[in-house]
């Protein structure tokens, strides 16, 4: 009997999962082809003109090329690349919209149409050229630098001196590959954001970072504990170019035209770099945490919004799934079982990326915030479903029998008799689930939603400080979850006094 059940279970699971996998194997690849083809017919240029805005993706943690700064309580993306972006938008007669995300997400965002182009100190490597098109080189860096702690300034100056040490670089960057190739005796440690790399450096996890000259010097100038040293790495840096989707000759042409103008007028040295330097000075001046309270406030606000909407999705979906799982209809039952097991058996981080880049690909214009809420809500639904199911199962059978004997239909029995009692039974478990959700909402920072974790990272980049913003974020998260716990306990007590 038991064995039969197991076989049946595996069979149904395979039957349900196979078509899903099938769809993504064939369809997503085809869809990707089709999309790049339709995109190839010049729709991006048209799209930009039609919407009146140019969406530029960047990883704004790379001063002085791209970084953030607060002006009148608003986050602004500044730096050399952003100045260039402004000029491109100006030449196209459209408004500039900047989307900030981690460097390794940028090309995915470009391929999935989330951004029109990527300007993020990106080098046109052969690998990247396979999936995207590049403009002319607009800026050529002078070489790579080691960024080290001040106390090590004399110790780590060459490739050889870093033998057996950890050396950090941005995941997916040129520098990352250089370390791998030219420093075989060192261990390369990749992280998506430079501010986290600096944190790793300062806490001793990494002995040195390899950064592009301007960035390394920016950190040296803004953090008195860090020193930039010219490395003896042979740079494979071909220079920085703007990445665009393939098959967009008119867009590439327009961008190149702007780059020509920028180079002819020597705008990078005459205008962009001085502007960036000025922003960095002002950033440095207000690097007390208090000056960044509005970052944290905005983060808290988004964290609360994400939590509330995800909880709503979680409760509705969870109730539905629980009822489906308890249903006598075998199809509904097995759909619910497969969904719950699948969600509980896959990492939430992967789910968030999948919803944003995978599903968001089919539904265009899905914002990162919406994708984050959906992903967390879908995840929460699976856990809430199991809580509710256990709550329903713990009720004596006589409750539903009494209701049915009075003529209440199955659904009314659930609505008026079973669910209210089940909710009361599982309130503590549900409360835990929601507190977990507050904390898990920090994961959506990977797709660039401006919640607390993301804003914390912005503060890290803006202040060149690593630990303090994290500590503040931790305190804020604790205040949020602690208040929520008190609130839930209050309701639990009230429900108890209501018999």
């Amino acid at each position, binding site marked *: 009997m038991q064995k039969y059940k197991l076989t049946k279970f595996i069979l149904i699971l395979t039957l349900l999962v196979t078509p899903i996998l099938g769809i993504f194997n064939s369809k997503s690849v085809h869809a990707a082809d089709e999309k790049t083809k339709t995109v190839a017919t010049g729709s991006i240029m048209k799209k930009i003109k039609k919407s009146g805005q140019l969406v530029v993706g960047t990883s704004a943690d790379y001063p002085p090329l791209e970084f953030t700064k607060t002006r009148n309580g608003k986050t602004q993306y500044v730096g050399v690349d952003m100045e260039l972006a402004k000029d491109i938008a100006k030449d196209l007669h459209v408004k500039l919209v900047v989307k900030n995300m981690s460097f390794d997400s940028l090309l995915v965002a470009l391929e999935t149409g989330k951004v029109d182009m990527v300007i993020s100190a990106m080098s046109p490597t052969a690998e990247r050229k396979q999936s995207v098109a590049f403009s002319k080189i607009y800026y050529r860096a002078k070489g790579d630098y080691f960024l080290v702690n001040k106390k090590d300034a004399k110790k780590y100056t060459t490739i050889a001196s870093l033998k057996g040490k950890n050396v950090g670089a941005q995941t997916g960057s040129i520098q990352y590959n250089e370390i791998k190739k030219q420093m075989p005796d060192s261990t390369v440690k990749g992280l998506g954001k430079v501010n986290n790399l600096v944190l790793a450096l300062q806490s001793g996890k990494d002995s040195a970072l390899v950064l592009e000259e301007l960035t390394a010097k920016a950190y040296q100038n803004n953090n008195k504990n860090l020193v930039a040293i010219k490395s003896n790495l042979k740079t494979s840096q071909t220079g920085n170019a703007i990445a665009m989707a393939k098959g967009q000759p008119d867009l590439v042409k327009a961008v190149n035209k702007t780059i020509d103008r920028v180079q002819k007028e020597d705008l990078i040295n005459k205008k962009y770099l001085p502007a960036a330097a000025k922003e960095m000075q002002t950033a440095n001046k207000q690097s007390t945490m208090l000056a960044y309270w509005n970052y944290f406030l905005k983060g808290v606000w988004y964290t609360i919004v994400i939590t509330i909407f995800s909880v709503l999705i979680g409760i509705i979906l969870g109730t539905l799934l629980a009822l489906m799982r308890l249903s006598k209809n075998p199809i509904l039952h097995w759909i619910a079982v497969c969904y719950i097991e699948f969600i509980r058996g896959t990492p939430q981080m992967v789910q968030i990326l999948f919803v944003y880049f995978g599903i968001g690909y089919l539904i265009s214009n899905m914002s990162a915030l919406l994708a984050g809420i959906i992903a967390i809500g879908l995840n929460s639904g699976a856990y809430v479903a199991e809580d509710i199911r256990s709550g329903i199962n713990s009720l004596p059978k*006589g409750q539903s029998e009494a209701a049915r*004997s009075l003529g*209440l239909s199955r659904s009314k029995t659930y609505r008026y008799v079973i669910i*209210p009692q089940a909710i009361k039974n599982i309130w503590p478990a549900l409360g835990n689930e929601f507190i977990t959700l507050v904390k898990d909402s920090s994961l959506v920072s990977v797709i660039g939603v401006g919640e607390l974790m993301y804003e914390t990272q912005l503060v890290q980049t803006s202040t060149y400080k690593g630990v303090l913003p994290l500590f503040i974020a931790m305190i804020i998260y604790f205040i949020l979850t602690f208040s929520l716990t008190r609130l839930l306990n209050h309701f639990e007590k009230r429900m108890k006094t209501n018999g």
Partner: protein
Amino acid sequence: MANKMIEVEHLKKNYGEKEILKDISETVDKGQVISIIGPSGAGKSTFLRCLNVLETPTAGKVIFEGKDLTHIDEKELDELREKMGMVFQNFNLFPNMNVIENVKLAPMKVKGVSDAQATKTAIHLLKKVGLEQIANQYPTSLSGGQQQRVAIARALAMDPEVMLFDEPTSALDPEMVGEVLKTMHDLADSGMTMVIVTHEMGFAREVSDQIWFMADGYVKEVGTPEEIFDHPQTERAKEFLSKVL
């Protein structure tokens, strides 16, 4: 004879391999009070629960208002169940509602009766079972006897044609049995059709028009209280009654 309320034809119920009800064909007439007695394991409760299809019979028919309850869709079944009140051994009041809300729930949500009308009916019924003063209390604060009387009022609120009682006093402390039996007695006197599974032989004798003696999955004997209690025909009934009387 009066018209038939419930007709049972060749009813069978198995749990897996085990046969609980083997072959039962009986009729409940309108206005009749029937007590089902017999040893435990005879299938009395299962039989009662088959009458409103809380248990789905394995074979046979249960005909109520001209319809076979075992072969109708769920919506029709819900409608017919309104007319068959049921009282359970464990009361099964809804603990998330107070007494009057328990009584009002089905009239309002099933029949669509207005709150005011449902309240009026509920108070009337609670008065009838002597509990109007505890209308706003929650079930957990009531004694077993009070809970069972509320359960009776709750079933009556749907204005049923027949009331099914599944060992209504078995879970009660001895001093509470009397108040519940009195309520049932009043109900019988008012002309309600009742089918009662009970171990209270004295009460069964006093209140019933007919006694059904069940054993081993069959209704072995049917008769008036005098016939069954004073002159049982089958060995099985004689043996059982010698033990309980």
